[in-house]
């Protein structure tokens, strides 16, 4: 090992943040906000959680640029596929 020269972050603190965000998103479902707002909120929280796992547990924060590109390109392709098909699905009944 030792090919990835960086200090290990405080993994326990990141785990605690992940659990906190999980409970925040679960509680948000029971709060009296509109469904659109609630769904947006829980998916933003999910994206933040995924980002934290990627950056710290999967060490993307410390990786070289090429590896970050390999990680982010399929996510962008997924979003393009999803967003480009939404109008057809929602408006074309």
């Amino acid at each position, binding site marked *: *090992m030792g090919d990835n020269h960086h200090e290990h972050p405080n993994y326990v603190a990141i785990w605690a943040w*992940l*659990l906190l965000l*999980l409970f925040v998103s679960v509680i948000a479902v029971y709060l009296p906000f509109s469904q659109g707002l609630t769904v947006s909120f829980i998916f933003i929280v999910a994206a933040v*959680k*995924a980002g934290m796992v990627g950056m710290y547990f999967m060490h993307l924060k410390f990786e070289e640029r090429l590896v970050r590109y390999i990680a982010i390109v399929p*996510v962008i392709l*997924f979003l393009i596929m*999803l967003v480009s098909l939404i109008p057809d699905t929602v408006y074309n009944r």
Partner: protein
Amino acid sequence: MSGASTVTEYQATHTVPGRMGVWWFLASEIMVFGGFLAVYILYRMASHGAWAAMAEHVSAPIGTFNTVVLLTSSLTMVKAFEAVDKDARDKARNYLLITVLLGVAFLCVKGFEYSHEISMGFTPLSGSFWSFYYVLTGLHGLHVLAGIIANFCLYIMAVRGTLWSKNCQGRVEFAGLYWHLVDVIWIFLFPLLYLSY
């Protein structure tokens, strides 16, 4: 020896080829799950709320519990990697075992959930939501199973000492990257299936 030092030098300055290979594999996994997730989201939007009645029957508390289990297993996996990096062999072995056990716990809870849902009459044929539910969680469960097998093999190697004598420590990092991706996929599956009703 010169060959060995060249490898070390290469590893010190560039991304290890093995890690690059794992990331390519993970990118393909993101597209596999991305396809399923996109279809699920689009169908659900097209249903204009008609799936909400079906989605109400999944258990958010059980899903939350399983999310905690999987997030914790990601922590123990990355701690195993840290222990290997610092050559703390006993710690690495123990963390690998805990990760395997948490993975097994996740699948046991999932199995309990399936049996409960099926006993309530919700099978993959009970409607579009349930078809997606079983396909998405089933595919994810198979990935968890694959991760458990990989981690268990590493645990056996750690117990025997071959993880170090055969210089295979890097595999803990690779298995960890895969395990964390399985965790990331669940991070999205959980709100999609359990919280969006």
